[in-house]
């Protein structure tokens, strides 16, 4: 197993195989990031590939200040952010206003992603639910949440990444989580209710 640095050096020299190895190492993580951001496989593929391509082209500029993965993540996040913003054109300022949970839905301009066949497995229902909810988040909230809870970045890193203040990051994460929590609970309550009804029906037959 080669070290990342070695592979990076070889990739810089133009060794496509070396870069391919790096791709293999990190494609899941990047793909997941992209998927979580956009909620569907198609976009995830596009953007993850885009991220890798950009990384490959920008290899010259990578000086090894950080780990390759961090740098790659940065690129991927940028790609996703650019795309999100392009699609939903929600200005950053408006998200900082005091907003109640309900208003989020008003702000939401996100079209619901169509679930693919793989996503209908019951096992993944919760996950899918979560993802659907995430999809309803406005871009800036979405990004902050994913970077925090899926990528595991620190608040500072996130602040740097999203080019905003630490306070903003805290606020966004907090609000995003609250929102999700409320939604999940509501949904689960609904599910439970349905369960109870169907159970009673089964029993009554």
């Amino acid at each position, binding site marked *: 197993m080669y070290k990342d640095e070695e592979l990076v050096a070889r990739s810089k020299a133009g060794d496509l195989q070396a870069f391919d190895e790096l791709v293999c190492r990190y494609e899941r993580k990047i793909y*997941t990031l992209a998927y979580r951001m956009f909620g569907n496989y198609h976009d995830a593929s596009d953007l*993850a*590939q885009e991220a890798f391509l950009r990384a*490959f082209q920008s290899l010259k500029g990578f000086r090894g200040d950080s780990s390759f993965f961090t740098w790659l993540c940065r690129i991927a996040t940028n790609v996703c952010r650019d795309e999100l913003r392009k699609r939903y054109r929600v200005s950053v300022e408006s998200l900082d206003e005091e907003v109640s949970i309900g208003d989020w839905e008003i702000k939401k301009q996100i079209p619901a992603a169509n679930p693919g066949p793989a996503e209908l497995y019951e096992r993944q229902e919760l996950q899918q639910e979560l993802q659907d909810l995430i999809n309803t988040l406005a871009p800036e909230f979405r990004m902050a949440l994913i970077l925090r809870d899926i990528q595991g970045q620190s608040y500072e890193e996130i602040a740097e990444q999203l080019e905003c203040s630490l306070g903003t990051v805290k606020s966004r994460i907090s609000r995003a989580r609250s929102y999700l929590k409320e939604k999940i609970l509501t949904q689960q309550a609904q599910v439970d209710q349905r369960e109870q009804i169907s159970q009673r029906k089964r029993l009554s037959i």
Partner: protein
Amino acid sequence: MNCQEIREKLSAYLDNELEAHEKECVAGHLANCTACQAEMEELQKIVEQLSSLEEIIPPPEFHRELFAKLEQGVREKKKEVPQMKKGVFRGFLQNLFGAKRYSGLVPVAVALILLLLVSPVLLNNLPGMQGTKSEIAMDMAAPEDGGFSYSSTARSYGTDNYSLSLGPEMDKAGAGYDYMAENQAAGAGESRQMKIMNTTAPVAPPVPTDPVQTTGQVETEVLDRKIIKNANLTLTVDDYEQAVEEIRAKVVTLNGYVAYETEYTTDKLGTKRGSMQVRIPQSDFDTFLAGLEPLGEMKRKDINSQDVTEEYIDVTGRLNALRVKEERLLDILTKSGSLNEILAVENELANTRSQLETTEGRLRYLNNQTSFSTISISLEQAAVSTQQVTAGGLKGVGQWSKAAFIESINNILVGTGNLLVFLSAAVPYLVILILLVFIVVAVWRGRRSRKNPADKEE
């Protein structure tokens, strides 16, 4: 802190991102507030759930597609390198005609202007300068090309009659003594012609088109020699009118007279030209000539002397003989005789008298010629107003530089015209070229941006 505030901080508390004192605050509150505790638990739960979101495994084609794109990117980059150079060049041109239009074109335009100015000057220099030179040369000492160009310009000024008349006459009047026949041939005619005929071998001018050449005839006071003196001068003066006046005044002073006078203006440089022919008593010949010197630059000076003593003596002798004959015939007539004899005598007398008249005429002519010199003055007003130009050298340079300066200005105008013509001709080509450049640059840029979506900025 109230619950609301606490709840806002819960996330950060959970993530351990709070400041120490804040953390304590929250912890303290949580210990006492069940509502917030519940909230905290729910928050934890959701975070857990989020964290448990599985890693998504990319579909198999993901990797394949990515690799293919990477390869393509590498290939395109290799292709781009030679294109880069083209692109750079085209970009340079683009800049030249686009953004940096002004600064890029200025040196080019300057070079073009210089070229266009130089070429007409160069072209004009060859025949044109000669023309100028000839004009100026005429003001200078004659020897320098003056002969050739003077004749050419003189010819162009319509003095052909002079040259023509001079030619044949010149040949005919080979010897100095054939005056009689030519005199008769010319008849009373133009004095000019007479004068021309007088100019024989000694007067043979290098420039056949000298307007008038005569030999000043000087009758020496000393009876033993009879000399006809002629002078032929060409002067360049500053002021034609003034010079003419001065000459006339001098002539009058010396008891001479002006035989004829012509004047004409040439168009090329507005030069005034003219000739005068004056008769001055031979005794004052030298004085008069000396008096002419200060009037202007003496371009030519021919002084001819012709010794006609022998002819004079001959003519005088003949005259005497004829007179004697006449007397004798008259005597014979008085003796009377037969009608036939009288008639014969009368006849002979008539002949004699006729000859006498002719001879007397000749003598008178000789006397006239020898007693009065004929000075032919050809005047020319300087093309460029200058002072008395004594000799060539620096003064000539002054004239030359002025003329050259004027010519340069003319050439600049010509050159500007040529430049405008050239630009007008070039505009269609430039338009096509610019279009091509734009197309190529757009294609190149398009290709670059397709390759590098990363470069697309929002």
